[in-house]
């Protein structure tokens, strides 16, 4: 299990490639990556991610542990960045390793649903020279937790 909260970029390809390596029982690996995107106005210059330093690492560890209780997983990885990110940069990644594809898919999807609404991160979109707009939480993200 590997959980990292960091300001620096991470090397997604290298980490994905190394994840689950050498575990002979792993038959399925799922990765998810979230990327800074600008859907609405295409004038976003940056995304600022604030977090709660004392809580974040623990919260992510608890989620990963929860996933390991619900599904039989060989390994779990969560990396989440904070600070100022440019459009196109990777915000975070999750990876799950299991014997069967369903376990790996469900665990990754579960972790993403929890990360969205239960990990102490707040996103702000910066456009031009203004102060930025806090991204509003979506009802559908809260609702997504109901299925677990």
């Amino acid at each position, binding site marked *: 299990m590997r959980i990292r909260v960091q300001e620096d970029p991470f090397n997604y390809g290298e980490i994905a490639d190394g994840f689950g390596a050498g575990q002979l029982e792993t038959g399925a690996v799922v990765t998810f990556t979230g990327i800074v995107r600008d859907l609405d106005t295409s004038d976003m210059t940056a995304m600022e991610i*604030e977090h709660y330093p*004392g809580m974040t690492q623990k919260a992510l560890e608890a989620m990963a542990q929860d996933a390991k209780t619900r599904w039989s997983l060989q390994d779990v990885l969560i990396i*989440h960045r904070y600070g100022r990110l440019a459009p196109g940069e990777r915000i975070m990644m999750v990876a799950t390793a299991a014997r069967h594809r369903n376990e790996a898919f469900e665990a990754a999807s579960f972790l993403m649903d929890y990360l*969205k609404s239960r*990990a102490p*991160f*707040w996103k702000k979109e910066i456009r031009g020279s203004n102060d930025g707009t*806090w991204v509003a939480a979506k009802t559908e993200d809260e609702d997504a937790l109901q299925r677990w």
Partner: protein
Amino acid sequence: MQVLYFAWVRERIGLAKEQVETNATTAGELIAELSNKDPRYAAAFEDLSALRVALDQELAEMDSPLENVREIAIFPPMTGG
């Protein structure tokens, strides 16, 4: 008690954290107390349904007891991932 604010709650109050002396027994009571103290708090805490709290770095409810809690954080719904 150490009180922390994040995101637009922090911006509206103009503080990231402060030490507060309080007799409030729940998070909700503390929020009401702070709202009465200063209009900036009242503005930040206007819509309770848009607030979330963590007690000693664990998510909690507005009516969770503050007994033995050393750190409370008040913030908007999280937007991670």
